[in-house]
């Protein structure tokens, strides 16, 4: 920063018009501020956490000091426990999310293609999805038992809903003008769908998939609450059971970091897909 200041000062000494040379400096500063803004809240919260722990505002058993949480996190990572929990949770969310997305895409497309099917299925679907995961639990437990399928099903259900609804919406929002163009060209129904409806629906589909992932990841804790002896959700539940809130916080940090990273990844993919979207022409 001081180099920048020197440069602009030097330029000013050379009698250059003052507005021009400060421009790149300002642009860099503006970019720096832009980059820093998203960090403002987390840094402030972290500072509050440090200060709160230091001053004893909250009991250390309920909100352990950051240093303690960090040590616990490192402990978990170094004795291999963390990887066991992360890989278990990853498998569960991976399988559940894949199943949920697949069913969601198929169901959403089917409803999108057939108004009649939509009329038959959508109201029941909407009613059923309002029931929270926890309420489904005893019922699903009775049917599939307490093994891994139970977790897959509950995570799949969480992912399915936004995917199906967004897919349906994607199918429904094709602009009339585009459809008319298809008609002018004498497109068959199959061509209509493949050449016009689907390409136009891609961004909406992606939003659905992204939302689906968020929901799947969020359902982890609830799902691992039951009949589980490993996984990040279990770590949270068990840490609370043993009054080791440092373990809970460590698990929360890992869950948050992984969820954030994957969301970013999907965001990139979505942007890439959008770039290749044919804006009606193809």
């Amino acid at each position, binding site marked *: 920063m001081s180099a920048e200041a020197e440069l602009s000062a030097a330029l000013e000494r050379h009698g250059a018009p003052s507005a021009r040379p400060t421009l790149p400096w300002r642009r860099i500063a503006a970019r720096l501020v832009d980059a820093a803004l998203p960090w403002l809240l987390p840094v402030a919260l972290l500072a509050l956490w440090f200060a709160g722990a230091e001053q004893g505002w909250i009991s250390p058993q309920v909100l352990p000091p950051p240093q303690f949480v960090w040590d616990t996190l490192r402990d978990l990572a170094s004795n291999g426990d963390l990887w066991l929990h992360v890989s278990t949770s990853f498998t569960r969310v991976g399988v559940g999310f894949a199943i949920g997305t697949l069913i969601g895409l198929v169901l959403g497309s089917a409803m999108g293609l057939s108004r009649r099917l939509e009329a038959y299925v959508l109201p029941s679907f909407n009613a059923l999805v309002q029931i929270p995961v926890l309420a489904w639990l005893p019922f699903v437990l009775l049917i599939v*038992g307490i093994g891994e399928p139970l977790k897959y099903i509950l995570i799949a259900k969480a992912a399915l809903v936004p995917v199906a609804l967004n897919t349906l919406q994607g199918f429904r929002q094709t602009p009339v003008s585009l459809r008319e163009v298809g008609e002018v060209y004498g497109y068959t129904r199959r061509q209509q769908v493949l050449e016009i409806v689907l390409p136009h629906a891609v961004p909406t589909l992606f939003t659905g998939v992204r939302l689906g992932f968020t929901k799947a990841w969020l359902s982890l804790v609830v799902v691992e609450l039951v009949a589980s*002896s490993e996984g990040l959700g279990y770590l949270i539940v068990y840490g609370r059971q*043993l*009054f080791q809130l440092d373990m809970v916080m460590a698990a929360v940090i890992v869950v948050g970091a992984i969820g954030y990273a994957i969301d970013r990844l999907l965001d990139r993919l979505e942007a890439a897909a959008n770039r290749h979207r044919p804006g009606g022409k193809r």
Partner: protein
Amino acid sequence: MSAMKHLSRWAAAFAVALACATAAHAAPDTIRIGVATAGGGDPVTWGGSPGGVARANNWLEEEFKASGIKVEWLFFKGAGPAVNEALSNRQIDFAYQGDLPSIVGRSNGLKTKLLLVSGARNNLYLVAPVKSQVQSIKDLKGRTVSIFRGTNGHLVAINVLAANGLAERDIKGVNLDTGSAQAALVSNGVDAAFGGYEWFKVRDQGLAKVVYSTQGQDPAFTRQASLLVRSEFEQANPAEVQRVVDVFVRAAHWSSDEKNRDELFRIWARSGTPVASWAAEFDRQPLAVRNSPLADAFIVARYKAVVADALKLRLIRREVSVDDWFDTRYLKASLKKQGLEDFWTAFDAKGQPAAGPSVAAK
């Protein structure tokens, strides 16, 4: 609003808060008791402890009515862990808790004192589906068994397995809470489950059978529950603590009288657990043994053993001192006041009647 005015308002608010805080030290306006169970009924109460009798009969409320002190009962669906959180946040003053959760709290730095026992020798059972091949603990080898990990039932289950030559890794342990365990067992999702008296209801519906019971076995296989007080509260309000202990001792006395057996179970049944379940849980066990408030050598030994087991299973990370945790001054005073010094039998570390002082020497 000017900054100065703003500041002065804050100062005033702070002064009021401070005044309230100091006033609270003089005499509490509310006594808050946290109970480590969801409880049931209306008003909410719980069973299996003389404390439930004091609660159902409003004895504490009556005791403090004249002093204008309100009594608040708080029931925690999150059981022991939630009670620990509430203690830590100073949201409750007294806590009724099982042995392991209170030890977990103490190992994490909660400052509490153990006043008296309120529900001793709670049994553990192994249940299986009615048509199951499982006949004994030994049959569990290689089978799927529900254990609620991190609870005192977990510790006892491991000791029961060990007594039958099995280690935890010899069975396929599944971590299930009480409700899920019942659903899983009924749907044959597990081959067997460890649990407490809550299973009698399921058994009486014809959905499960009891394969093993700690009744009549080594009393080391039982679980204890106690009344604790937050140290800070105890130091500030010794008179109120004494009165609470008096009421709990009175409840323990009433609950130890065999002629009250049916009435006791009916009072406990208000919590939603039927009379038949209590009758089964207390079958052929003297009420005076189960409801004794004494922190005798047996109780101290049990708490020490639970500390050792919890350390071994890494449920706690630090050693917990037990001897300086029991504060039986209040209990002794109550027993003396109510003429009950020789009413209950003290037991030795093995759980056998001991000739000696009725309250652990402390």
